[in-house]
């Protein structure tokens, strides 16, 4: 096992090659390059040719000549790092699904709890083509290891510095959760604040038992705490790096309250939190994908540079692509497939808009206008939201710009008009909110349009200010959820007829 690690740590360095002539040729022999092999980095060969030294991606090419490396040395070796739930749950799920698609047979090698690796063999020939070594890391240090060249691929909830390339590969959410035998299923945000701030020492105040309340959260610095309106957590808060241990502790203690990632709820039971105005959004696949649930977290896949062996590039592309989405879901995380929510399934939101319009004739006319615009359409689960107190899109939404453009480019919405619908929170006057939501909708549309090739679908804009709140505006939590640009699709034919 030690040897395996030494070898993989050497990945990324240029290996001196045995001097000698080589000929690299394409499988059909149509293209061939001849020269002296100077050095090699994975599948990248540096060759002294008659035109000077060139670097060639030799993945998939034939090598002949005495300078060619031993085929064994061409095996892709990659070290993958991240916290336990990422490298032992998300990564294996992706690797297995990738293997199935590529005619590869994965075998996991287990030396002990800390030393796990994977061998990928070609189906039929049993030829070893890749080795992945798994390194379990504490949360938040994967990017340091990437920059040091100790690992080549990392999965983490923590955003990496700019030098590291990262993709949002899955979604997660922080969910308040209790033990199965805690009878509570709902809390108001105010009650949650009282419990988390330590303003009460038991559940007795809310009709529960009077045993000592305990609070359990991730060891990661939780950037979403201000959004909950909690400057500081109670003194008796326990922090965990291993989310499974946290979930088991919460599930076993009826007086425990945990803030647990949705993907790691285990046997703990999620609570639904409602605002003072009564609006509540439970954490579900749709609400997390749409970021209607207030504390969603992107799961990052990170790497440095782009000169990876072909197999690793293929794996990265697979993990980001549509074929991986059902696997991500099966592994307990939330996928990023673009779902559609029909108009009929949004009755509560519409009713809410009608109620909040009051008696005012202008208000009612505007609600009618909004319903007329959206009727017959479907809302996409992909939504654009903004960093707290900023007009910058948040991380998940930035990733959604490309994701939507990709879907439009592949023709997923051919025959539909896309409508970017801006909404604001309830702070400030209505006219100001209308302008603000319109501006946001236009900026998201131009970001998407810049990545769309051709005009298969028309991209339109509408804005309705604070007309259709999704959460109570009285907290940062609610405001964040309400400031949004939704995306609706409508069959082009119907959209034209309505004009």
């Amino acid at each position: 096992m030690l040897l395996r690690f030494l070898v993989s740590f050497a990945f990324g360095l240029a290996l001196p090659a045995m001097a000698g002539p080589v000929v690299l040729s394409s499988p059909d022999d149509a293209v061939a390059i001849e020269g002296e092999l100077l050095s090699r980095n994975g599948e990248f060969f540096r060759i002294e040719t008659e035109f000077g030294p060139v670097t060639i991606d030799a993945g998939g090419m034939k090598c002949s000549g005495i300078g060619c490396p031993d085929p064994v040395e061409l095996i892709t070796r990659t070290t993958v790092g991240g916290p336990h739930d990422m490298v032992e749950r998300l990564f294996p799920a992706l690797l297995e699904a990738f293997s199935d698609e590529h005619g590869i047979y994965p075998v996991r090698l287990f030396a002990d709890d800390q030393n796990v690796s994977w061998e990928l063999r070609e189906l039929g020939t049993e030829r070893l083509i890749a080795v992945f070594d798994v390194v379990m890391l504490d949360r938040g240090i994967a990017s340091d290891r990437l920059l040091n060249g100790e690992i080549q691929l990392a999965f983490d909830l923590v955003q990496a510095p700019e030098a590291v390339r990262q993709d949002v590969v899955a979604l997660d959410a922080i969910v308040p959760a209790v033990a199965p035998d805690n009878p509570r299923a709902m809390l108001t945000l105010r009650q949650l604040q009282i419990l988390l701030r330590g303003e009460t020492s038991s559940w007795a105040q809310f009709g529960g038992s009077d045993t000592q309340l305990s609070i359990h959260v991730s060891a990661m610095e939780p950037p979403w705490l201000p959004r909950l309106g909690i400057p500081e957590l109670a003194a008796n808060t326990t922090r965990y790096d291993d989310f499974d241990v946290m979930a088991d502790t919460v599930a076993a203690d009826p007086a425990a309250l945990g803030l647990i990632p949705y993907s790691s709820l285990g046997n703990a039971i999620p609570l639904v939190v409602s605002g003072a105005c009564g609006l509540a959004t439970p954490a579900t696949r749709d609400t997390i994908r749409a970021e209607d649930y207030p504390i969603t977290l992107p799961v990052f896949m990170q790497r440095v540079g782009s000169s990876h062996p072909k197999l690793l590039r293929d794996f990265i592309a697979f993990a980001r692509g549509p074929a991986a989405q059902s696997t991500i879901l099966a592994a307990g995380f939330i996928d990023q497939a673009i779902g559609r929510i029909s108009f009929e399934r949004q009755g509560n939101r519409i009713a809410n808009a009608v109620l909040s319009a009051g008696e005012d004739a202008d208000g009612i006319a505007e609600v009618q206008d909004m319903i007329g615009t959206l009727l017959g359409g479907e809302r996409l689960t992909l939504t654009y939201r903004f960093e707290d107190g900023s007009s910058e899109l948040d991380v998940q939404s930035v990733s959604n710009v490309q994701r939507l453009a990709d879907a439009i480019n592949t023709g997923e919405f051919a025959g539909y008009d896309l409508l970017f619908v801006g909404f604001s929170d309830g702070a400030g006057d209505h006219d100001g909110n209308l302008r603000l939501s319109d501006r946001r909708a236009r900026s998201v549309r131009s970001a998407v349009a810049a990545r769309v090739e051709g005009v298969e679908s028309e991209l339109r804009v509408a804005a309705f200010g604070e007309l259709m709140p999704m959460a109570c505006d009285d907290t940062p939590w609610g405001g964040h959820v309400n400031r949004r640009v939704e995306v609706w699709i409508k069959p082009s034919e119907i959209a034209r007829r309505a004009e």
Partner: protein
Amino acid sequence: MAFTWTPRLRLGMTISAAFLLALLSGQIMQSNWSNPPIEVLSQPPVVIPSSPVVTARLQIPPSLGDRILETRAERGVSCAPSLELSETPGGLLDVAIQAACHRAELIDVTVNELTATVRTDAHGQHTFRLPALAETVAVTVSLGAHILTEKLSLSQNVELQHVILAWKGGQIFSVRTTTYATAADAGRTIPVLQTAPVGVLTQLGSERGHAFEILSFPARPPGAQGVIRLTVEAEVTEANCGQDVSTLAYQTGYSGKLRPTEIDYTMPGCDRVGDIVRLQNLFRDMRLAAR
């Protein structure tokens, strides 16, 4: 099959198959597979015991009666061996080996990729039941020069998930479940922690050869959700201390396929004889249905 059917043999086999099925169906009624192993507990909430879930053990059905065999022997039935596979409701496979000329012998049986060394009885028979690990099951029996192979495609798709340990020689590792699934009552108001056994353990093989054990769980037990965490334990003994131990493990992956793990573990030194080592990461959690 490596021999020709004669009408008399066919009659004999039909009778024995019918007898076997009768025996087996009696067996099902006693095993955990007859009812969903998840039992939803009523209120009030139950306190969970700290000991691991005790799993039920499938009994290998008793061999066929002497009389049938004696009758067949008198009629001069040859010692050509036979292998029969049959499907039993609940995603189970019954295997019946008949090898009149291999009485009380150790023979190797391979079910898909798993091999077990079993001993035939005084009449050269061995029957066993195990969960079908794939939609198509291939069984191979090696009897000296005779190699019997049979395949069976299951008609029923039962959603079971398995963890498997396979070894040669004495058993060193065994699987423990350390948490319970959560069962919700019909109204989903007061979920309670599960105390009933949720898995079924099947063991096959001999210390003198190959053996394996399969721990099976329903993938979507009605009314239950959550995860069952699995650890693997091994006791450090005089015989294994300090040794390099190789064994195989399999687990149902997210796509429903069995996925292999090769274990190459160095047991702690002999100063730790009597200790139990626990491997937390060998198997993933069993996830019961999606939330």
